[in-house]
Structures are given as structure tokens and as C-alpha cells.
């Protein structure tokens, strides 16, 4: 089968699968977060946590819970990583250095999964499965919880309560992430993804011996994609045959990393009682995803350089079993969501392809975005859109029956400002100090692109990298950890603030004078606003990096 046919088949299969699954699965998620019944196992957990599961939280209390829970998670994970020597299955490896532990702990709790270490040579199984995997679940569940809280903000009227974080966290984990990742892990095992507890020593043909690292990979792999985490068991991530060995496992992983973000649009539509609203959002996401995919595929699969023509394809950094098409698809999907798993080296993408996946992240990862983060990110942009467009129909802007006043606009404005600010300040700092050893030392436009990519990936909680720069220096470990931390929790706090202020409002009835927000016109406006805001913010950085490279 040719590369193109394989790629097109993968895309077609992916579309069919998502189209079939997102409705029932989205409705199921809506049911999970609106049902009044608790499962027995959940009740037991609430008792241990000391949570009254039937009580509701205000925006402030919800935020405190999210932040408190995440802080504790970071501390626990940090201790596990630093002290992994004391844990079983440590494979005889020492504890991680403190700055790397901090970076990694923040990285996994913020759903970024930026990896400044090489999994197989740094971590024991206890740290991988007991530390990282747990955060793969919990950080994803936190993202979903925040998204649901925002949706409740739109749904509720004159309440100010956003649900119960602990209930949302537990239900998201137990009813959504665990069962799905269990099934997915089994499917992955069927495709050759390994699941064991030992390294294997083999005798090589030349007579020497070689240790093949093994481990509980499939169980980590499924949640890595499902929770849009992206932290690979191995350094090679999803290009490693033990993580992603066949075109089918590749399809499964693509499906897993898209299924929750895509289905959450349905959950939104169902919960707010306007399925069309869900479709409009999904439409905007799909358009951006499709456009990015088209550009990346054009850049990667097309023979645009003489070298590519001679070699028969731009295969540097790509797996031959996936080829250009499936690699382009994976690269678009992993940056369009906040996954950051890779099945090809993004650093080796062509300037246009690499620039596009970079832009994909700069858009705020809303096509379709990380679990939860994608939907709340695009909803915030929808509020910006509605504010500008709503004025143009001559009314105080409103969306889903909620007015966008001073308070709401403050949250939204700070949200739009926060992540770009973190990225720009991070890049500026790294570049300004570039002569200093341990800071930046790569030359030219591409070296610049690598730094831009690193901070964009960290602040947007993506986790993929233009490798090529050394990020193990104190500066990068700490500055990127800060970017991840702030890039995750400032937006979350603002989203919850917005949700609270929306929930306090009554509902404005829809009239002919109301700006419809469920139409193709609005969806295209939304895309326009996202592209414009991103473009205006990052145009200079893009011009000096990928654009300068691509046009040369």
C-alpha cells in the first residue's frame, strides 16, 4: 500500500470512527456529570476524602479545590521522582535530579508531559506506573472537570455554584478515563504494544548482549493518548515500536487522543440544550484541524525540495512504517490537542510543516484541544467573538443567554492575554540571555524556532518538542516548569472565575435580535477571531523563525 493510500485510509477511518462515537460518548459524558447517583466505589472514595458529594461549590471554592489538589499532586510526584530509589521496581536507577523532578512533576500534573528525560534510562517502573500514569489520569480528569464547570456556568441561572470538583474528578476518572483506557490498552497489546515488568537481555547476532528495556507500556500508552497527555514510556514516544508498532495501533492512538476533545462538543451541546451549539464549535475545530492537516501534509508529503525528490520523500525523522501522510496526521493531531505525543521528530519537519504545528499550538490548542482544555479554550474565544460581533448587531453581547459584561470581559481578556504573555516573556528571556552558557546556543532561524517551540509547547501544556536544544540546564528546567505551571493554572482560575460570574446571571431569552451563536456564520467568525488574535500576537516571532526558514 502506498504512503498516500495508507494516509487517506487512516484519515477516513478516523473520521468514521469519531463520527460514530462522538454522539453516544458525548451524551454519556453529559450524563456522567449531571447524574445525581453515585456509584458505590465512588461513595467509598468520597468517604476517604471526607467530601460531601452532594454539596455544591462556588467558583472560588471550586478553584481552590483544583489548585490545592494539583499542588499536592505536584509535591507527591516530585517526591516519588526524587526518591525513586526507595521504591520497588526501580531497575537500580538513582533518583532524578531536583530540577528535572520539579520539571517532570509540573509537566505531568499540568497535563503537559514535557519530558526533559529519557524514560527508559531514567525511570523505574514504580515511578512510571505509580507516579506518572496516575497523573496521566488525574490531570486529564481535572481538565474535563474545569470544562464541565464552565459549561455549568452557561447552564445555571442565578446560582453561582459550579458543581463539586471532587465528584467531577472522581467520576471523570472512574466512569470515563479508566474504562476506556482499559479497553484501549488491551487493543494496543493486540497490536504488539508491550505490557510486562522487566527488561530483556538478548544475545545479539554479533555475539554481544543487549538489554531491551521493557515495562508496563500499554497501560500507560492508552491513557497517554486518551488523556491528551503525551508523555511516552520510551524516549522515542509513539514512534517506538513497543509504544506504537503497527498502522492499526497508530490509528487507535490517533482515535484515543481525539475522542474526548471531539465528543466534549457534543457534551456541551447536550448540557446547554442546544446540540447545534456543539456542532458549531465542532465545525470551527474541524476547519482549523483540516486546514493545519492539509498544510502539514502538503509540506511533508509533497516533494518540495530537491533533496526530497532525490530521496523519494522527506523521510528524515519519520518512521517508514507510518510514512509522510500518517506522520503529518499524527503531528497535526498531537499539536491540535494538547497531547504532545509524537510518531515523528517534529524538529525534522519541513519549515512549513514545523511552522504549522507550531501555529497549531499557538492557536491555544483549540482544534480540538486537550481534554477539557480544548473546549474551555474555544468557549473563551467564542466569548471574545461574541463580544465583538455582538456589538455589531446592536445589543450588549450575549452567548447562550448570558451577557458579557465588564466582569466576564475581565476574565476573558486576562485569559487571552495570559498564555501569549507567558510564551513571549519566556522566549524573550531565553533569547536575551542566549550568550550565557546553559541558555540558548543554537544558531540561526531554526535554533530560534526550537526555543519558540519549547515555550509555546510548555505554556500551552502540549509537551511535544522541537528537540535539538538541550533543555536539561537549570534555566530551561525551571523556566519551562514555570511556563507549564502558569500556562495551566492561570487560565483555569480565569475560566472558573468566568464560569462563576456566568452562573450568577439569569438567562436572557433568545429573540430575533439575539446574535445566533450556533450558525456556520458564527463558527467562521470564531475561526477568524482565533486566527487573527493568534496571528497578530505571534507574527513577529513566526516571521523570524519558521517564515524566514520557509521562504528561503
Amino acid at each position: 500500500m502506498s504512503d498516500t493510500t495508507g494516509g487517506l485510509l487512516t484519515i477516513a477511518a478516523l473520521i468514521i470512527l469519531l463520527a460514530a462515537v462522538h454522539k453516544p460518548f458525548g451524551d454519556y459524558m453529559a450524563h456522567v456529570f449531571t447524574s445525581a447517583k453515585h456509584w458505590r466505589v465512588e461513595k467509598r472514595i468520597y468517604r476517604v476524602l471526607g467530601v460531601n458529594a452532594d454539596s455544591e461549590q462556588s467558583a472560588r471554592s471550586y478553584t481552590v479545590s483544583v489548585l490545592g489538589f494539583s499542588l499536592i499532586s505536584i509535591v507527591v510526584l516530585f517526591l516519588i521522582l526524587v526518591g525513586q530509589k526507595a521504591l520497588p521496581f526501580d531497575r537500580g536507577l538513582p533518583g532524578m535530579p531536583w530540577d528535572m523532578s520539579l520539571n517532570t512533576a509540573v509537566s505531568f500534573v499540568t497535563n503537559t508531559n514535557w519530558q526533559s528525560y529519557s524514560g527508559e534510562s531514567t525511570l523505574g517502573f514504580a515511578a512510571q506506573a505509580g507516579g506518572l500514569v496516575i497523573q496521566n489520569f488525574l490531570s486529564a480528569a481535572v481538565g474535563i472537570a474545569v470544562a464541565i464547570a464552565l459549561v455549568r456556568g452557561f447552564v445555571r441561572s442565578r446560582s453561582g455554584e459550579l458543581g463539586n470538583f471532587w465528584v467531577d474528578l472522581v467520576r471523570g476518572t472512574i466512569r470515563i478515563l479508566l474504562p476506556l483506557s482499559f479497553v484501549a490498552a488491551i487493543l494496543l497489546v493486540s497490536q504488539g504494544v508491550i505490557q510486562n515488568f522487566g527488561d530483556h537481555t538478548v544475545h545479539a547476532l554479533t555475539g554481544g548482549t543487549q538489554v531491551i528495556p521493557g515495562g508496563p507500556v500499554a497501560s500507560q500508552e492508552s491513557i497517554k493518548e486518551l488523556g491528551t497527555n503525551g508523555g511516552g514510556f520510551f524516549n522515542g514516544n509513539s514512534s517506538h515500536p513497543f509504544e506504537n508498532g503497527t498502522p492499526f495501533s497508530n490509528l487507535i492512538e490517533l482515535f484515543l487522543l481525539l475522542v474526548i476533545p471531539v465528543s466534549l462538543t457534543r457534551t456541551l451541546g447536550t448540557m446547554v440544550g442546544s446540540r447545534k451549539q456543539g456542532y458549531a464549535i465542532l465545525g470551527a475545530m474541524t476547519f482549523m484541524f483540516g486546514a493545519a492537516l492539509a498544510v502539514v501534509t502538503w509540506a511533508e508529503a509533497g516533494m518540495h525540495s530537491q533533496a526530497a525528490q532525490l530521496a523519494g520523500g522527506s523521510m528524515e525523522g519519520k518512521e517508514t512504517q507510518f510514512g509522510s501522510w500518517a506522520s503529518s496526521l499524527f503531528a497535526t493531531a498531537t499539536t491540535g490537542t494538547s497531547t504532545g505525543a509524537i510518531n515523528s521528530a517534529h524538529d525534522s519537519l519541513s519549515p512549513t510543516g514545523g511552522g504549522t504545528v507550531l501555529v497549531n499550538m499557538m492557536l491555544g490548542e483549540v482544534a480540538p484541544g486537550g481534554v477539557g482544555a480544548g473546549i474551555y479554550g474555544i468557549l473563551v474565544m467564542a466569548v471574545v467573538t461574541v463580544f465583538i460581533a455582538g456589538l455589531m448587531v446592536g445589543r450588549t453581547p450575549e452567548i447562550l443567554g448570558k451577557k458579557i459584561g465588564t466582569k466576564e470581559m475581565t476574565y476573558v481578556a486576562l485569559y487571552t492575554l495570559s498564555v501569549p504573555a507567558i510564551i513571549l516573556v519566556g522566549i524573550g528571556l531565553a533569547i536575551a540571555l542566549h550568550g550565557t552558557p546553559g541558555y540558548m546556543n543554537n544558531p540561526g532561524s531554526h535554533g530560534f524556532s526550537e526555543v519558540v517551540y519549547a515555550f509555546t509547547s510548555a505554556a500551552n501544556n502540549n509537551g511535544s518538542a522541537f528537540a535539538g536544544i538541550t533543555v536539561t540546564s537549570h534555566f530551561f528546567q525551571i523556566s519551562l516548569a514555570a511556563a507549564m505551571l502558569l500556562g495551566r493554572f492561570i487560565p483555569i482560575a480565569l475560566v472558573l472565575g468566568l464560569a462563576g460570574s456566568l452562573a450568577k446571571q439569569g438567562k436572557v431569552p433568545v429573540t430575533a435580535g439575539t446574535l445566533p451563536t450556533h450558525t456556520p456564520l458564527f463558527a467562521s467568525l470564531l475561526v477568524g477571531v482565533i486566527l487573527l488574535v493568534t496571528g497578530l500576537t505571534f507574527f513577529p516571532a513566526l516571521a523570524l523563525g519558521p517564515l524566514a526558514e520557509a521562504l528561503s
Partner: protein
Amino acid sequence: MTLSSLLSQLPSALRKLDPRHLWRSPVMFIVLIGSVMTTIIAIANPSTFAWVVTVWLWLTVVFGNLAEAVAEGRGKAQAASLRAARTDVMARRINAAGVEESVAGTELRKGDRVVIEAGETVPGDGDVVEGVAAVDESAITGESAPVIREAGGDRSAVTGGTKVLSDRIVVQITSAPGETFLDRMIALVEGASRRKTPNEIALSILLVALTLVFLLAVATLRPMANYAHAPQSTLVLIALLVCLIPTTIGALLSAIGIAGMDRLVRVNVLAMSGRAVEAAGDVSTLLLDKTGTITYGNRQASRFVAAEGVTAEQMRDAARLSSLADQTPEGRSIVELALAEGADDSDLPNGATFVEFTAQTRMSGVDLTGGRLVRKGAGSSVAAWVGRGMDPGVQATIDEISKSGGTPLVVAETDAKGSRVLGVVHLKDVVKEGMTERFAELRRMGIRTVMITGDNPLTAASIAKEAGVDDFLAEATPEDKMAYIHKEQEGGRLVAMTGDGTNDAPALAAADVGVAMNSGTSAAKEAGNMVDLDSDPTKLIDIVGIGKQLLITRGALTTFSIANDVAKYFAIIPAMFLLTFPSLKGLNIMHLSTPTSAITSAVIFNALIIVALIPLALRGVAYRPASAATVLRRNILIYGVGGVIAPFVGIKLIDLIVSTIPGIG
């Protein structure tokens, strides 16, 4: 707006360069700081380029101030003419002992009673408590026809500065000096008490956030450029920053607000706050009084129905005869209808005597010489007069008219042949011309119209149907109105209403937009947040349009301002880095001649577009009532897509001129 009117405001625009004033608009404040910095740079390292950029940055700030000054200037002219009315007058106060004393108008306090006679000026706002007078209110309303003000009822309020033309009235003062209606009016049209409205604040927040993003983008560009071995001068970075931040909307924002209030003033409506004008755009329920707003206010004859055996002409002529001397509006309308149906225009025959309506007879008519008597009146009275029961045919007509909400007026005559019923006149409320279309228009805008009437539900339903309103409130008491307003607000709807009576005051206060008629009581004027000087209840519809226009103008110019940035980037970024990265030539899609001319052109465009848009900001974006989706599509096309394209053309044209300047081209 002419060039000279712009130039005349230049001095006040320059006065507004005060940083303490500009601080109110953060976007323009940044431009001011940028201008100061480039001035210092230009002095330290003079070059044509540096000075041209500096001058145009200063002009950007001045143009922004100019927009505000022009908007305010229009109000100032009006304030001056109002001030003329506020001459210091002496008042004749009645003291506790009941004796008149002469005091200055400024010494009057609430509750004081003053006597005003023909030819004297009313010394302060108040209610007439004694007497009736014709008052010339032209100083405030611009309307020269005098109005009647009388004690009691809903026409008791007089305004300070107006003139009593006839008779003598005693007025109880209701406002403290300096807080009179006239004082408030002056403050309002001058914009002295102008505060930012909620929506304006929300928009400002968005603009500040965008400004901060651009500030960061430009600030971090410096190390990036250094790293790329393409170091950028502070001058160029400031130019880039000013071009990127939303200066167009930042400069015009306050002018738009002032002009919106001004547009209301031009239709003779005074809004007590900008918030009320904004709320008007959001209104989704209009409570309209039936009488005077929806209908002409009087029942009018709409058709004659002849009884069996009577010709249409006989009926028509008899009805006309009975009403010739009747000066009531109903009577006059019968005469008019008869004329329209072909009756002759003759006067009452000699010797005829008019029989007036009395509460006892409940009939009016005429007694002709020769014993012919013609009467019209309510069915039962006429039946009694005729002396026998009503024919079934006539009774059916009466019932049918009553059922449709009309008033049946039975015409009968007595002559030598005896008494007989001739037919029935159908009296009904006539809906004002064009109202049905306006209500349909409002419905397309998503606004529900509710008719308020004292009529019984049957009559109300029939008129509501004819006028095409969405709902009606029959036999409405002030309490009913309040309840209705609360019900609508409960559902998240914003309600607008008009009122003039004291009993309207609570409802006016409760409504989101309460328009008090200037002819109404001071209580009503206190309670509402707008006053209509013409006392025209239909104006509510215009007010809604003006409110919407204000918001649309703000949104359209914001969109335009942000969309402009695309072209500016394409002008400036290649110019900055072309030397280091020749490959970026591909981005110079406008083919601007040199880097310096590209930057200069962008800066000049950025400044000129403010001046170009001042007329639009003052006039407001054209608004035709239509559904939100239609309005949006149109405005996106003009201000969004147009906003992307316009600067490409503009910057290119400016570049063609600028590139001829030595030292830049």
C-alpha cells in the same frame, strides 16, 4: 462635517494632550508615551525619517483628541443656548404667613411656593398647585406653540426657565437650586457628567488586553531581532507598537459615546445616563400606551350600517345631521366620514337647534324645523327614545360591533311618520398610520410590543390584533404595569416604557428604559431615565434604534481597527527584517518601495484613518432594522473584510507619495 469645523476644535484638541486626561484612554496614553520617546530620539539623532514618524505619532494623539473635541463641541453649542434661558430671575415666594416676598430664584428651596403671572419666567422646577396657565417652553423643547399647565392631573409640571404667557399660577418648587432640570440638561449635553458605560468599560478592558499583548510582542521582538542579527531601533519598534495597538477605536471610543447621547438630544430626548442609552439597544419588550401611541386617541367613525328599509344615503345624511353641531372628536369624525362617503357639505338648516349630550339622555342630536328630530346615542337609550324594542337586524349589528371592540352609536329620527331607527355608526379606535409596519419591524429586531390600555379585554384584543402588537394589558392599573414589568425582567428581558402621570412613576423607575414625557408630572420625570421634550410616546422606537446604533458603531469600529493590523504587519515586518532575511521579501505583498517608506506609510495611515472615521463615529453606522444575523453579515462584510482590505490600499497609496520624500524613499 466640514474641515473648518474640525479646525475650529483644534485648540481644545491640543488642550486634551494633558496626560491626566489621556490616562482615561489607555490606548492613546501609550501613543502619547511613544510620541514623547520618539521626540527625544529625533532630537538626539535627527533624521528625516525620525522626524516624520515623530510628527505623525503626535498627530495620531491629536486626531484622537480632535474626535472627542468635535463630539463635545456639538453639545456645547446646545448648552450655550440653554444657559441663556437660565437667567437669574426674581421669584415671588409666598412665606409662611401667606404674604408674597421677593427673593432671588437661586434661593428657592424644595417645598417653597411661588406665584407666577403672565410675562414672568418660571424661577425653578415645580408643580402647579393653583390655577392654569399657558406656558412657552420653547427655551427647552424648541417648540414654539405654548402648552397648558394646570393644577392637579398629569399636566402640572413646569420647568425653570420657561415663560408663563397667560393667567396666574402658584407653583410648588420641587428641585434644589443647581439641580434643576435645566441644570441637568446643560450638564448632560456638555458631557460634563459623562461616565463610561458598562459596555464601554468592557470594551476598554478588551482593548487594554490587546494593547498589552502587542506591547509584549513588540518588547520581546527586540531580543529576538538581536538574536537574528537584525537589531531594531527603538524608533521603529515604537512605530510598530503604535500601528498595532487598537488606536482607531481607542481614539474614537469616547466620541462615539458622546455622539450617541447627542443623537438622542437631536431627537429632543434627554438621557440621564449613557447606561440608559445602551440599555435601550438591549430592550426586548416595549410597553406602549394605546392612546396617543398606537391609536389616535379618540374613537372615530369607521362605517355606517343602515337598518333594514333605510338607504345608505339616508343613514349617512342623518348621522351627519345629528353630528354637525357636535364638537366632540367622535362627532367630528362622523361628519368627516359622511363627507368621505359623498354627503354634501351644507351647513345646518336654519332654525335647527342642537341637543347636547347629557348624562341623563345619553344622546345628542338636532331638532329641525318642521318637527324632525334626529338623535344618536347608545343602543338602549335610543331604543327608549324611539319607544320600542330594537329590530333584530340592528341589534345584531350592535352586538357585532361591540364584540369587535368597537362602540356602536345608534342613529334614529322622529318625524311626522313616527319614530324609527336608521342604523348604526361603528366607532372605533383607529390605529395610527404606519404603526403596523413599525411593529413588524420591531418584531424582526426581536422586540416584543405590548399595548397598555384601560379598555376592557375585548376591545383591547381587537385593537391589539389590528395594530399587530404581540401582547396587550387590558384594564391596566399602575400595579398591573409593575407586575408586567417584573414578569418580563424575571425572564431576563429588558423593558422600555413611556409614561407621564404620577401613577406611572413606579413603573418608570422599574423599567430599564423609562421615558418620561416632558408634559408629565415632575414625579414621572424624576422616575424615568430619559425625558422626551416633545412628549411623543412613539419616539420610544427611535430611542431603541439610537441605542442599537451606538453599540453597532462601537463594534464596527473595533472590528475595523483590529482587522487593519493585518496589513500593517505586512508593511512593517518585512521592512524591519528584509536586510537580514531577504527571503521575507515574499511578505512585502504591497511592494512598498523602501523599509523606511513602508514604516512611515503605516504610521501615516494609522493616523489618517482616525480623522477619516470621525464623521462615521459622530453619525453612527447606518442601522436598518433587521434580524441580528442579517445585520451581522452586513457589518462583518463592511467593517471586517473591508477593514482587512482598506489599509492595504491606503498604505500603498501613501507609500507612493511618501517614497518621493528624500531621506525616506
